[in-house]
């Protein structure tokens, strides 16, 4: 009874739906009447999004349903040919439409003749047009790639890949071509759905050559750790090591393949790859971040309309190796330069004019960007604003060698947007080309570009040394002479006599200071002779608590100094966000925790050191940090990136030295033998972790308790 009634009604409803979806929603919509529905930004060096002017504004909306093509309701892919024709392939009807750049409909390919019979595409997903204007279509439903002339005449069909050598194709290989691209020589690259081996490569005549560019599996440390312990069953259940699959490819004039990998729950680090013909990834990732789209995105735990990382579904390369990627998740376009710097971003997923609901493909038409919206059956045409124009022009002039013009453009960009740090890099590069290294360094610093800064510094250093070689040598000679003179004077006791004359012994405060000074001075001996050094420190009272405290404060200050004044190349800190208190605590808290845990532990195992002894010994043991860090910090300002190994070696040296001293200090203080000492130290570290753990636990509990009480309170208040 029910079914009989439901039938016609359901059909009526469905047909109604179809009518509704195919009616033009956007016919002749003037986007200049509506405010643009998204904001633009870039990320700065510290992952913070910085607002930016709009790079692209919606210009036109092309509505397929207004064209009156029968059944054209689910466009899947879009491609703009070299001669600026726009090709769109429809998944539901299998038709291909072509427009000229004025959006006049050129032709509709509904079917083609294949060996005397009418053949049609079945659920095609990808389209590509080569430099001669011939069309390749990934005919997914028919498991083949169809090669057509511009007028729809069949050239050839590239069917199921048949390898010349056995074993290239995986078992149970299911060929579902979805995206396709060809290089100038006619080599064909095909993406097949659910294929993790990479991109299928065919030669000119359609012979399958093999896979290239398989996305590498890079298990994280934790994954490796997990793999160690996991049983076979657990391993199979966790699809950790499943390589990812490409979502789309584009090919540039030189035959490099740009491929995108969609992100899932977590960010795919290699979301964009640039493959050379042999499949190696040569994409430069020198920007502030890897080109992965949004750095700062809400997770599924947060309340946001759209959560998770950007998921790239299409890529389009334009001149100067600048590439645009389309994020399906938020409907944004991200544009990166050849170095991987984010130039700008625009778009959003919304039911608004100029936004997209279901973006599936993008391409560039001249300086315009076209985005295909599968849901509304439209292409949104975006046109660049003067801001984006200026950025692109700056690149153009730079490539052409017109550095003055390039500088001019970057200055204009900065006038538009003071937040654009890339402009400073651009200005710096232009200055570099004009051999103005000092200015270049200044700009690279403003642009937070450490690589280029290092280059500029190396030239600048050479230049300065070259220009001032005599001066530098004479200054060094002078300093050496000065030191020798001072030493000689000291040997003769000149300084001692001067100090004697102050009659400091009569003033108790000065006596005190002298004794503290002496105790600190002792550390110089101690760091080179740890065994008897620590013995004397404790038993001969060579060290003192005030001395230890002073050393500790000096260590704190050294940390602050290092944080602020390490050379720009080695210093990724935000200098404007110094917090001395936090810096001090970062030294003091672990220090005191160490002393406390060690003391409580050693009293149990009959260590001979008191808390004070431990405190003093540990503080003295940190002296190498002061001695090495300060000169290193100064020197780091004159070092370039390549010399970083030297810098980091000495930094580690200081740390290791200090660690050794701590070890011996504890040993001597407690009169432990080696094995016992090692054990106590390990236990101390474990104890410190335990205390931290307990502390966190306590805070968590306290917070939960607070939440609980608050919730009860709220419920009472609200319900009353």
């Amino acid at each position, binding site marked *: 009874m029910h079914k009989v009634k439901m039938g016609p009604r359901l059909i009526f409803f469905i047909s109604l*739906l179809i009518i*509704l*979806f195919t*009616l033009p*929603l*956007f016919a002749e*919509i*003037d986007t*200049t*009447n*509506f*405010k*643009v*529905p998204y*904001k633009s*930004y870039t*990320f700065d060096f510290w992952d*913070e*999004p*910085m*607002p930016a*002017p*709009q790079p692209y*504004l919606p210009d036109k909306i092309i509505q397929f349903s207004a064209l009156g093509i029968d059944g054209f309701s689910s466009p899947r892919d879009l491609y703009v040919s070299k001669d600026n024709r726009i090709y769109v392939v429809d998944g539901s009807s299998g038709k291909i439409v072509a427009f000229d750049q004025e959006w006049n409909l050129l032709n509709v390919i509904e079917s083609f003749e294949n060996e005397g019979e009418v053949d049609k595409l079945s659920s095609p997903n990808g389209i590509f047009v080569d430099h001669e204007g011939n069309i390749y279509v990934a005919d997914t439903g028919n498991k083949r790639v169809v090669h057509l002339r511009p007028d729809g005449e069949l050239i050839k069909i590239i069917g199921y890949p048949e390898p010349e050598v056995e074993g290239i194709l995986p078992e149970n290989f299911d060929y579902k071509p979805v995206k396709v691209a060809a290089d100038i020589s006619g080599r064909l690259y095909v993406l097949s759905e659910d294929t993790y081996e990479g991109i299928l490569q065919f030669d000119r005549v359609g012979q399958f050559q093999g896979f290239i560019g398989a996305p590498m599996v890079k298990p994280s440390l934790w994954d490796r750790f997990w793999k160690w312990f996991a049983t076979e069953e657990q391993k199979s259940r966790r699809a950790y090591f499943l390589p990812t699959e490409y979502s789309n490819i584009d090919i540039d004039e030189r035959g490099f393949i740009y491929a995108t990998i969609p992100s899932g729950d977590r960010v795919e680090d290699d979301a964009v790859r640039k493959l050379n013909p042999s499949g190696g990834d040569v994409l430069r990732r020198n920007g502030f971040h890897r080109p992965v789209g*949004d750095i*700062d*995105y*809400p997770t599924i735990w*947060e*309340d*946001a*309309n759209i959560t998770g990382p950007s998921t790239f579904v299409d890529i389009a390369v334009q001149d100067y190796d600048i590439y645009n990627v389309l994020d399906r998740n938020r409907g944004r376009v991200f544009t990166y330069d050849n170095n991987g710097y984010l130039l700008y971003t625009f778009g*959003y997923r919304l*039911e*608004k*004019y*100029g936004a997209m609901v279901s973006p599936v493909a993008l391409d560039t038409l001249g300086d315009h960007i076209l985005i295909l919206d599968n849901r509304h059956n439209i292409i949104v045409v975006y046109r660049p*604003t*003067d801001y984006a124009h200026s950025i692109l022009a700056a690149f153009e002039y730079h490539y052409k060698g017109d550095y003055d013009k390039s500088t001019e453009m970057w200055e204009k960009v900065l*006038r*538009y*947007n*003071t*937040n*654009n740090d890339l402009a400073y890099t651009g200005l710096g590069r232009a200055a570099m080309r004009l051999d103005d290294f000092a200015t270049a360094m200044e700009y690279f610093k403003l642009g937070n570009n450490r690589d280029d800064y290092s280059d500029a510094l190396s030239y600048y250093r050479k230049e300065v040394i070259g220009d001032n070689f005599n001066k530098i040598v004479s200054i060094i000679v002078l300093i050496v002479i000065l030191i020798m003179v001072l030493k000689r004077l000291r040997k003769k006791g000149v300084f001692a006599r001067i100090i004697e004359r102050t009659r400091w012994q009569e003033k108790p405060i000065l006596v005190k200071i002298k004794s503290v000074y002496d105790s600190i001075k002792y550390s110089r001996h101690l760091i080179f002779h740890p065994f008897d050094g620590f013995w004397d420190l404790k038993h001969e009272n060579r060290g003192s608590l005030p001395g230890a405290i002073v050393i500790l404060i000096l260590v704190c200050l050294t940390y*602050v100094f290092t944080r602020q004044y390490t050379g720009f190349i080695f210093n990724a800190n*935000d200098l*404007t*966000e*110094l*917090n001395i*208190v936090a810096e001090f605590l970062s030294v003091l808290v672990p220090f005191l925790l160490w002393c406390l845990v060690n003391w409580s532990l050693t009293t149990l195992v009959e260590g001979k050191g008191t808390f004070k002894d431990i405190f003093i010994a540990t503080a003295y043991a940190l002296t190498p940090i002061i001695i090495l860090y300060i000169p290193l910090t100064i020197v780091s300002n004159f070092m370039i990136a390549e010399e970083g190994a030297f810098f980091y070696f000495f930094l580690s040296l200081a740390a290791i030295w200090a660690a050794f001293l701590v070890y011996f200090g504890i040993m001597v203080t407690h009169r432990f033998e080696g094995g016992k000492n090692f054990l106590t130290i390990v236990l101390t570290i474990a104890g410190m972790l335990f205390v931290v753990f307990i502390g966190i636990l306590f805070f968590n509990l306290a917070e939960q308790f*607070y*939440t609980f009480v608050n*919730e009860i309170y*709220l*419920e009472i*208040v*609200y*319900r009353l």
Partner: protein
Amino acid sequence: MLSSRFSRNILVLLIVIFCSWAALAQISGFDKIAENEYLILYINNKTTEIAVEEKASGEIWYSNPPDRDKMETRARGAARDVMVSQLKIVFFDMGDKMYEMNSYRDAVLNEQYKITALENGVRVDYVFGKEWNDDDFVPRIIAKEKFEEEVLANLSPFDRDFILDQYHLINMVELEEGEELLSIYGINTEEVFRNYKIEFLSRKLSERDQRITIQNILKEIVEGRGYYSINGIKHEDLVPLIHSPVYVQKHDIIPWDKEDINKAFKEAGYHPLKVQEDHARFNYPLPYENVRNFELAIEYYLDGEDLLVRVPGDSIVYPVNVIDHTTGNTVTLPLTTVEVLPYFEAANVEKEGYIFVPDGSGALINLNNNKTNLVPYKKQIYGIDFSTQPIRELQPFLNEKIYLPVYGLKKDDKGFLAIVEEGESIGNINAEVAGMRDSYNKVYTSYEIIPRTMVDLAATENLRDTTTLHRLAINMYQSRNYQGDIKVRFKLLKGEETDYSGMARIYQEYLVNKYNLSKIEDTGNPPFLVELIGAIDKDLPVMGVPRNVTVPLTTYEEANIIIEELLNEGLDNLVIKYTGWSKGGIRHNYPDNVKLEKKLGNRKDFNSLLKTVEENDLKLFPDIAFLNVYRDKVFDGFIGYRDNSRFLSRRRAFIYEEFNPSSHQPGDRRKNILSAGSLDKLVSNFLSDYNKLDTGGLSLRYMANQVNADFRVGVDEVIDREQAKNHIVTQLERLSADYELLVNGGNAYSLPYVSYITNMPLYSDGNILLDRGVPFFQMVLHGYIHYTGEPINLADMSELQYLKLIETGAIPYYRWSYGPSSTVKKSEFDDLYSLHYKDTLDEALEFYQRYSSIMSSLQSQRIIEHNQLAFRVYETVYENGDRIIVNYNRDQVEIDGHIIPGEDYRLIEGER
């Protein structure tokens, strides 16, 4: 089954006949109830629909579509009944479940309405929701005499037999000798019945039927006495039945007879109160009055040429702490929303025209645009009430809001423009196209009589998506309902005035007459508006410890320098808005006393700035934020528990200030919302200091684009949104007495008091339900108030801004600083990314020159028409006949022989 289908067919036939008959006599069913010089008001006494006829032309405007029976193809049943309603209400039960009622189905059909003629109008009082359920009219047990006297006697013989057929006459009498009691499952029959039995007098029943009937009687008694189960029943409960013949309802009544039974009892005049008596006598459960009753009235007046509709605030009655006898609980059913005349002049699928909504600058929704899979349009007048729940100031999904309480509809050559005169701040404008819910295009207002929000019981007050189900969230309501009136004025349009230009002209005329707006005086060059940013605040390390410090961008002296420079360039009509000039910068201290920011200079510097302004006859508008409190210091006049507005959750209300353009998540920084009740005191204190500065002008940051209620617990403490608006209006009036005012946005209530509006919407929101944006707001104000949109150098659509200013007659506006733009980096003000004045000075001067060459003669002219001439080509016609044609296309166009280059404009002078 067959018969019901047959009767339905007959019904359909009848409707068809009725329709064709109705079509012949258009106004039939309606009675004339009021008349004035221009109009006649009709009312349909059966449905309470109204109609207004214009005497001169004979045109008729209907409250509900008169052709609905013919044109409606989608809606059925309840959805069809709504189309006859004049009021619709929404309420919630105690379990936060939402219900809707409408005046036709829930009042008129129950005959719970009263029509009262008024002078020049008519009033209809409704009671929504049945007072008694239909079943309540029918006693399930009744004494024989009473039944015969009060029911049967009043029935026709046919009905009498029918009703008698539904009852058994029984009597409880002593058992005869040797007779066995009928055993009833579940009770101790002997104890309950003792030596009585139930005798069936009306007809003979099988033992099984007897048993069921008796069981049913017992069940009713159990329920009536409130026992837990049938074995709780005692002999005493049956005593009233002994030796008193009663009629009891049969247990096997056929469902479709029920309606007829109910009808018969109603016709017999048997009232539920009598049923109560009957049931009480025999320990049956009592029928009670429904608690879900709502009272509401609507009044229609003929006011000159307009129809004025009023929903009196004192007519609103909803259940507050009433006892629901069926459950014994105390119940409050908050009446949250009232929709007024949802079908006024609704347009059917054959009409052409559009709906006008004041979204941003104004927008049109074409009738029957087929966008039926989208959600209907709904937007709050005057934007969001920030006091309802924690929310970000910048809404990523909400580009523009509604500033004007007007809406309109054009269908063919007829239409209307509605102006909400009272209650607009709790109002929403709703629009729907045919095919969404029914076959009509309509636009109407709804009102949040009791604002509501969902509050999360989790302790953290973060932005939370309250729609997700796994959260425990409950509804919170304003403590009392809105008590003022709702008043909507319908301007009836026909002929040539029926388009958005005509609507704009009519609304302008309305505003001019109502508020005595005066025209701008022609002062030569058009104004050039410069906003200078004084100081901002930023987290910077001071002695190595990060602190929030004030950083100067444009000191008083530097402001002077910029002004001098602009004067030298020949800009003699400078209007300067000075933001962040007082202590604390843009996020200034609580302004109950006015202090200059030391980092910007001293009093002398400020005075010399004032002197420059005065000497050159310029205008200076120092900017101040009254409604939001950025900093709450210990010793300022802001006392949280007193001056801070409350959320619906009764917590202190705040707004998230930061906006993350990437994640769209709010940051930590927030500002408090000032309770409108504390505004008067704040302004008094402010003025006592500010008067000494002698600036002549004042810029108000939020007074014309934010209206926030104060949802305190106490019924007397609540300041609802309309009251908050009135507080703001009072202060605007007071401030405008001494100062020339500049405001942001420009909510309609501020218009009588201001001379400049900045950040007015020049675009409408890009909701794809809308088909076109139109500069309605600008057409209304041009010639009376100077206005402009976002600053050109920082506008979202900066490139189009020049053309847009020309098209809409807005004045040039830049936001500048003397200091370098890079100062804003790494601060909360990093969206001011192009601020340094030198960066945009040249292009500004160039634009101003072109602008003033065509606009200087048009400043005081009204815009009388705005048209789309071709795709992306618009003309603005001024009252002196001048036309400006703007071409947004990249290529040139030719209009009437005039060539307009791509992205350019042309002034075509009218004949004078």
